[in-house]
């Protein structure tokens, strides 16, 4: 419940950032650069003299947005491919071997390749994360769907001549949804971590855009002199990933009948 409450709080902050923490996250005052936390700047100021609370809130917003968009894109495409592979057995081998090939490339590599082609930025990172998510989603959905396909209700639907599309969307997908949902929650944390890693190595959000990974990267130069610049975004990443993992575990426990024994 704590994790759920934390995640809900994160989402609220991300959705209503300008109202919750009013101010310009890009407005700097070099005279307070690297200032440690005090009553005026609760989390201190960064190396450009920008308020860390503001940067954190806007960074959180972008980080969650990047993760959500990439998960929707990658998860959505992976889900469709997984359903196709399980429903049309002739396609199964082709689709899943393609997914195996994609799985052999780590997300960081996709990020590097896309940044080389498109230049660094938020869009290539989202694309890289989405591509890396597709085979994982496809495998999860296919695994559930193959089991569902063998059940009587699917046989019955086929026997009465139901359209393929209706069978997939009305019957197959809803019965695979819980597994997909639990996986997506767990994956959300991983995607945030990967996105932050790509930004950390300079492929993601570019200055002055606030993004947690980029903020951590920017702060590491001053780790010995102004540790708060790197520590604040790192702790934020840790807590967000932890919250999504705990939430995912909780959802799995709640939705898996075997766990209720």
């Amino acid at each position, binding site marked *: 419940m704590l994790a759920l409450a934390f995640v809900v709080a994160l989402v609220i902050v991300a959705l209503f950032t300008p109202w919750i923490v009013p101010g310009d996250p890009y407005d700097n005052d*070099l005279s307070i650069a690297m200032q440690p936390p005090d009553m005026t700047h609760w989390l201190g100021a960064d190396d450009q003299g920008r308020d860390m609370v503001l940067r954190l809130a806007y960074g959180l917003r972008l980080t969650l947005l990047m993760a959500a968009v990439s998960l929707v894109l990658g998860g959505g495409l992976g889900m469709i491919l997984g359903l196709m592979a399980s429903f049309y057995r002739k396609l199964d081998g082709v689709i899943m071997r393609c997914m195996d090939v994609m799985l052999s490339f780590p997300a960081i590599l996709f990020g590097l390749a896309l940044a080389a082609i498109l230049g660094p930025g938020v869009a290539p990172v989202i694309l890289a994360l989405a591509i890396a998510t597709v085979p994982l989603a496809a495998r999860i959905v296919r695994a559930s769907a193959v089991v569902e396909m063998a059940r009587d209700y699917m046989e019955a639907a086929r026997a009465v001549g139901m359209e393929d599309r209706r069978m997939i969307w009305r019957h197959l997908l809803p019965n695979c949804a819980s597994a997909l949902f639990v996986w997506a929650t767990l994956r959300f944390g991983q995607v945030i971590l990967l996105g932050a890693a790509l930004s950390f190595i300079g492929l993601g959000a570019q200055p002055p855009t606030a993004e947690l990974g980029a903020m951590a990267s920017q702060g590491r130069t001053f780790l010995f002199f102004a540790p708060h610049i790197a520590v604040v975004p790192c702790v934020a990443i840790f807590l967000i990933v932890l919250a999504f993992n705990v939430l995912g575990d909780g959802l799995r426990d709640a939705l898996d009948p075997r766990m209720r024994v």
Partner: protein
Amino acid sequence: MTKTRVLLAGLLAFWSGSALAQMAPRDTLVVLRAIDADNYDPVRSTAIASGEVVSMMGDTLVGMDWDMKTVVPGLASSWTVSPDGKLYTFHLRQDVTFCDGRPMTASDVVYSLKRLADPATHSPVRWRAGPVKDIRAVDKYTVEYELNSPFSELLYQLSLFFGTIVDQNSVEKLGQNFGVQGFNGTGPYCWSSWTPRSDLVLDRHAGYKWGPPIYKNPEPQVAHVIFRVLPDSNTRLAALQSGQGDVTQYIPFFALDGLKHMPNVHMSQQPNYFLDYFLGFKIDKPVVNDPVLRKAMVMSVNRAAITKFVFFGAADPADSLLNPATLDYDPKSKGMEPGYDPVAARQLLDDAGWKPGADGIREKGGVAASFTLYGLSDPQSNRAWESVQADMRRIGVDMKVQLWDATVGWGKLATQDFDAFVMSYPYVSAGDALNLYFPSGNAPTPNRMNWKDPETDAWLGQAREATDPAVRAKALADVQEKVTEANVWIPLFRGQLWVASSKRTEGVRAHGLYGIGLYKGLDITVGK
């Protein structure tokens, strides 16, 4: 803050002392640096990383004194210039040998300098040789350098490492691998081995005694020099303090103040150091083609605050196109450079019809005051561009920053895909800087501003061909004033050259010709 930095740097050194390898070897100078070069051929590389090694492996006809203005003898013990400024006659030393022991003669000088000037070499610095008509050996130790038209910059240019005299046999034997697999020069140290992105090892040149007269002792004092690449600034710093490295000019800005107070580190500064950071506008691109907007942008940048808080005082604010200490600097142009005044800048834009939009970014005739800036990514200075960006945003100008890795960045900076760019560059004189960036013929690169002005071309031509220093200075002053008035550049910061050395070294003095900290590295001794 300073005490904290010293304490933390000390802790870092203690930690690194246990974590890293052993101390630097005996009778060996370990030079720590941030990056490697792709080759060490003087006519094929313009990198400081290349020049700092080539300067030790080879010599030039003339050298440069510590004041960065006085040309001193090098391989040429004396020279004369004809009254029309077209014929330079160099009288060579007769005691010079290459690293393989072969005596150096006039034919080697002719070969090396013709190689630089020959279009077939495709040297990026060919222009530095001037309008060469012929270079010939009059006798075994006399060289005549004949020009089609006078080139008043010639001696300064020949003092740079691009004019290093190399062994023809070695160049022809190694071909494209010259400076990659080996190097045979006349410098105080000789090529031994190179492991790219790691160590480049040089050995003392036996019998070398023809170093420039700016040194107390013209002979090399240590048996070996290792140029060691440590890309991470904290690691480099720790290696220096723990005695695993002896000397470095690549000092992270944040550590400079602490190092000055460090008892086991000696700091040497070159006050006559010409390495400037500037922001250039492509004056024919929309938005930045507006001179009023350019002037307002110049007025918006708080250079003093950026040098203090971003560079930690390791750079000085630039309030003129060129460094006041440089040869042929024009003091009048300094008065024409707009100072920091964001209030007046906003007023200027209001009066010119640039009105703030809903997002705070100004607009005029439906065009937003927004442009794209390219630059090379460099951890040391990237933060500065962010500060400049914030300053411009404060007057309602949106500058989008796109930084590139050096491997692709130079290619990107040769395109017309951007509106402005940031760069740092070393130079030896006003003529050197202006002849590089402002002739029409040098567009699109290095004249990335697309500054094509017949008057500027004429003045630069006059300066190049002047035989009277006063005429040259006047022509270059005219260029400085015109370019300053047009606000083609925002002169941003002047780099400082500091060389940090460990306690076991003595005689380290920052030189800084073309940004090279140690130059010949003579006078440096290494204790146990």
